[in-house]
Every structure is written in C-alpha cells, then in structure tokens.
C-alpha cells in the first residue's frame, strides 16, 4: 500500500469524524446553556434587524418578479407592488413577456443560457485547477522568480480587468481566436484572486509532513498533487470555482467585444443588448430574462452550499 492510498483511507476516516463532530456541534449550538440564552429584548431586536435586512434584500427581487409580468405601459402605472392584471390573466401576461423576450433574443434565449453555462462552467473549472496548481507551487516550492511572480500577480489584482478587454481583443484577434468560445473562456479562467485564494489554502491546509511522507514513498509530484493535495483542497476549490463562475456569468464587456455570432453569445450579452438600445422599452421582458438567467446560478449555489461555506471558512480564518 502506498502512502497515497493510506492517506486516502486516513482522510476518509478523518472526514467521517469531522462530520460527526459537526453534527454534535450543531446539536450543541441549538441547545445553548442557560446563561447564554438571550433575554426577550435582545431576541426581539435581533429578529427585527434580521427581518428588516430580509426585506431590504428581497424587496427589489420581489419587485423584479412583479415587473417581469408587466408591459412597458403597465410598468409606469399603479404602485408597482402587485401584478397589473388579475391572477387569472397572469399566465397570459407571463406568456406575452416570455414571447417578447424570445423575440428580442431572436429565439436564442435558452441557447444563450446554455452558452453562459458552458463559458462559466469550463472557465471556472480550468481556472480553479490552474489557480490551485499555481497557488500550491508558490506555497510549497521554492523556485527562481517566485517572489517576483507573486508580486506581479497580486499587483494585477488592482488592475481594472475591464480595461484590458480592448488589448485582449487585439491579441486574440492576432491569433485568430476572436468569435470562438475560447475567446471568452481563456480570459475568464485567469483570476489573480483565484491564485491568491489557492495560495492561502495550500499554505494553511496542506501539511508539509504529508508531502514528505508521500515523497519518501516514491510518489511522483504529479501524483501527490492530483491524488492528495487536490483532495485536501476540494472545499477551497469549490470557493474559487463559484467565484470564477459568477464573475464569468456576469461579464458582458468581454463577450461584447469578443464574439459576434448569435450562436456564441452568453445570456448577459443579450440582456445588455436590450438595455443598450436607447429605444428599448420592454423592461418587463428584461426582468424576466434576468430572473430566468439567474436561476442556474441559484441552483448551483444551493447545491454546493456546504462546500462553499467550508471553503470560505478555510480561507477566511487564516487569510
């Protein structure tokens, strides 16, 4: 049995133990000792603050949902707090705006959502892997120019990425990559922040002893990385993945410059196209597009919530 395999077993056992501890802790937390039980006033204030914040964060979204069923003229009439039509007419109103949306996007709406998923998914995947590799390299190895590399990359965190779009476009043009999926994926998978997180995580959660033990066992560096390090860094990688995913999902300037074929556009570009036409008035349909476009992101966040939080914690504590 190699160290890696041994370690594999160990880490699985460790994970089980952690889970158990988590459960106990959760139980514990919900069952606070009496001295920590808050008095009624504190409790009321807390609830008030939390509910107020809830209203603050949700009200605009509620408004957007209502607005997504309205025609341009209904939008400016009434108080905006409720549907402009009666509930029985609602499906028709929704269908109307949905067809306006499809009309605006020339029937490509779902294709664009799919494109967005591909762009965000692939660039987040590649971006996470390369960022973790680089972070691991700078955290665990000494190599020539390391400090310079770290300095340059961190410096670029301060560079307004959007301003680099034009020169990026020229460079991608020169290598004939514009108007391809790669023109969006490549720029989106490089994130100095992703590198920074990868480095912090590798520094704090990969024990040197483990690496040494694996090396003594004769495991290659690549094997160590892909079988041991990646496993340890998994929760951290989810964090980087989601960060890159959302950043790519929300980007419109890059695709605006890089692609012109209808079949290659991401959904934000379609939405931006609606807004940027000065003569645009179908804001209800725009809201519907935005809400439908956000759905995949929400599903992703719900699905990965556990990892996402664990990863954030790992980075946040020692960050």
């Amino acid at each position, binding site marked *: 049995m190699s160290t890696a395999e041994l370690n594999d077993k160990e880490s699985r056992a460790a994970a089980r133990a952690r889970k158990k501890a988590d459960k106990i802790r959760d139980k514990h937390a919900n069952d606070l000792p009496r001295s920590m039980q808050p008095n009624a006033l504190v409790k009321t204030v*807390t609830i008030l603050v939390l509910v107020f914040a809830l209203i603050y964060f949700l009200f605009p979204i509620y408004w957007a949902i209502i607005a997504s069923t309205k025609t341009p003229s209904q*939008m400016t009439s009434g108080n905006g707090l409720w549907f402009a039509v009666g509930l029985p007419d609602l499906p028709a109103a929704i269908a109307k705006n949905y067809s306006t949306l499809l009309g605006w996007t020339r029937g490509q709406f779902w294709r664009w959502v799919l494109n967005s998923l591909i762009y965000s998914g692939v660039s987040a995947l590649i971006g996470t892997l390369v960022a973790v*590799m*680089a972070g691991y390299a700078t955290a665990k190895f000494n190599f020539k120019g390391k400090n310079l590399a770290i300095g340059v990359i961190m410096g670029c965190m301060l560079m307004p990425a959007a301003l680099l779009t034009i020169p990026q476009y020229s460079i991608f043009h020169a290598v004939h990559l514009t108007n391809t999926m790669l023109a969006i994926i490549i720029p989106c998978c490089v994130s100095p922040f992703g590198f920074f997180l990868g480095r912090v995580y590798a520094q704090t959660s990969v024990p040197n002893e483990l690496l040494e033990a694996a090396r003594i066992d004769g495991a290659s560096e690549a094997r160590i990385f892909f079988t041991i390090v990646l496993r340890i860094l998994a929760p951290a990688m989810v964090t980087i993945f989601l960060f890159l995913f959302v950043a790519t999902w929300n980007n419109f300037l890059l695709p605006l410059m890089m692609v012109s074929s209808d079949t290659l556009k991401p959904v934000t570009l379609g939405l931006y196209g609606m807004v940027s036409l000065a003569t645009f008035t179908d804001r209800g349909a725009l809201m519907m597009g935005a809400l439908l476009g*956000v759905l995949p992101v929400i599903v992703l966040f719900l699905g990965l919530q556990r990892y996402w939080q664990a990863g954030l914690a790992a980075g946040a504590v020692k960050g």
Partner: protein
Amino acid sequence: MTATTQTAKTVVAKRAAKPKASDAAKRENRTGWAFMAPFGILFALVFILPIIWAIYSSFFRQVTVGGGAYGGGELVNKFVGLQNFQYVVTSGNFWAGVGRVVIYTLVQVPIMIIGALVLAMLIDSYIVKHITAFRLSYFLPYAIPGVVASIIWVYLYNGQISPLVKMLAAIGIKVDFFADNVVLASMANITTWTFTGYNMLIFLAALQAIPHDLYEAARIDGANGFQIAMRIKLPNVRAAALLAMLLSIVGTIQLFNEPQVMAISDPSISKSYTPMMMALNTSQGTLTPGGDGPASAVAIVMALIAGVLAVVYTLVERKVNAE
C-alpha cells in the same frame, strides 16, 4: 529518471560544495515552475501582454494625417511622450472621479463590511432558528448581474414609478434619489445591496469555524452573549474582514456599472464620473482627447493610485495588527 540523474551528476561535479542542496533546489525549481506554468502562460496572455500593450500605447495618440478637413481617412499613432499622462494628471475631471471613488471607499466599504459583520454575528448567535432562509435571501442579490441590479434600483429610485418613493411621500418624506448630493449615496446603496450578502457569507464561515470550547470557557468565566461577540467572535473574523475590505476596495476602484446605468435617468452623471468610466469613454472617443493612448494613460494612472492605496492599506493593517 536517467536524465535527471545525469544532470544531477553534472551539478554534483560543478558544485561540489553543496551538492545535495543544489540538486534538490534544482528539482524543486523545476517542479515549482511546472505547477506554475499553466497559470503563468494564461496569465501572460490575459494580463501581462495586454498591460505591456497598454503601457506602450500610452505614449501615443491617434491623429489624422494627410491634411484636409476630415484628414486622409486614416488615423496614425503619433508618439507624444508623456503628454497623455500630463493630460490625465492635470485633468480636473479625472481627479473629481478619483475623489468620488475615494469617498466611496471611505464610506460605502466600511458600511457594507460592518453591515455584513452584524448580520453574520446575529445569524451566528443562534438567537433565531431556521437561519438558512435568512442566509440565502441575503445572498441572493449577488447572483443578479450588476447591470440588471442597477436597472432594478433605478426603477425603485424613480419618483414617478417607484413604490418606495410613493410610500415615503405618503408619510410625508420627500426624497429625490437623483439629487446632486444624494446620487452618490444612491449608487453606494446598489453596491451595498449586491455585495453585503456575499461578505456576510465569508464572515459567517469564519464565525462557524471558531472552536466552541472557546465559548464554553467564556461562559464559565461568566461572559454574556454580547461580551462573547465582542471579545471572541470579533477578533476571530478580523482576518476575513481585512480580506473582504481589500477586495471591496479593489471592486470600488473599478466602479462602473452603477453610474453607467444611473446616467440613463440622470444625464448629469458625466462620462468621466469614475476613472473607469473615463477610461472606457476615452477609448471610445466620447471624451476628448480620445483613443487608446489617452485611455491607457487613464488606466495606468488609476492602477498606480490603486497600488498606493493598497500599500497604505497594508501599512494601516500592520499598525493595527501590532497594537
């Protein structure tokens, strides 16, 4: 392995003094770069080359040649030395934009971070059960694309449409979210709405990572909930807060979506309202001098200012740490 052994031997022969260390160092060097390479190559393509391009082009301006009222139908790059930089640093519009960004950094970022912290602490206090719904709702705005979020808020600010303004008016409060002295705050609210939940999640994660025996110990010492929050929880999320702060400042420097969308409703928001807007509009020629040269100069000067801000921030952070 043979190749490596061979090189190792030569190394041994050459540097007899510290043979082992050198061999290991060489290997480490190679491995390090091997892991670094994929990111490095992409990074060079996406950041380094464009930055070099930007620096190069900042020494040029795009002007007509060939005379005639319309020029010869061709723009050429004319080397102008530091003229573009001179234009930027003497431009009142640029510094006004920097001023807005600095105010934003000094006011909006702390409010957002403190808000996120308070929410995270309250959720972590276990005073309220079923926190998942709260946590998720706070986070939801982050998933809405920035342009769309701005559009939603522009509606909610609009006197003739917004239920918000109408309700306030009904109870006798008249607000104009687009008034000259309010518009920056209106903008800051959009940013706060979008990113508070995200920062809260970071803090929440940090809070939940605090070992619970610390609380036990505090409880035995007779500390109440508030004291625990201030003495144990707060110090433990400091690192997270500093990171969130740095990221928010970086985001603020690139402030673009909010003013750009709000300008639709308030045309007095100029094309150079923030340095980022100024750079893009310069590159598109809606500001003069236009073109890539002056635009690059705006970007570079702004990046330098950001660098200075970051250094100041780090120094302050160190000082705070030392205390």
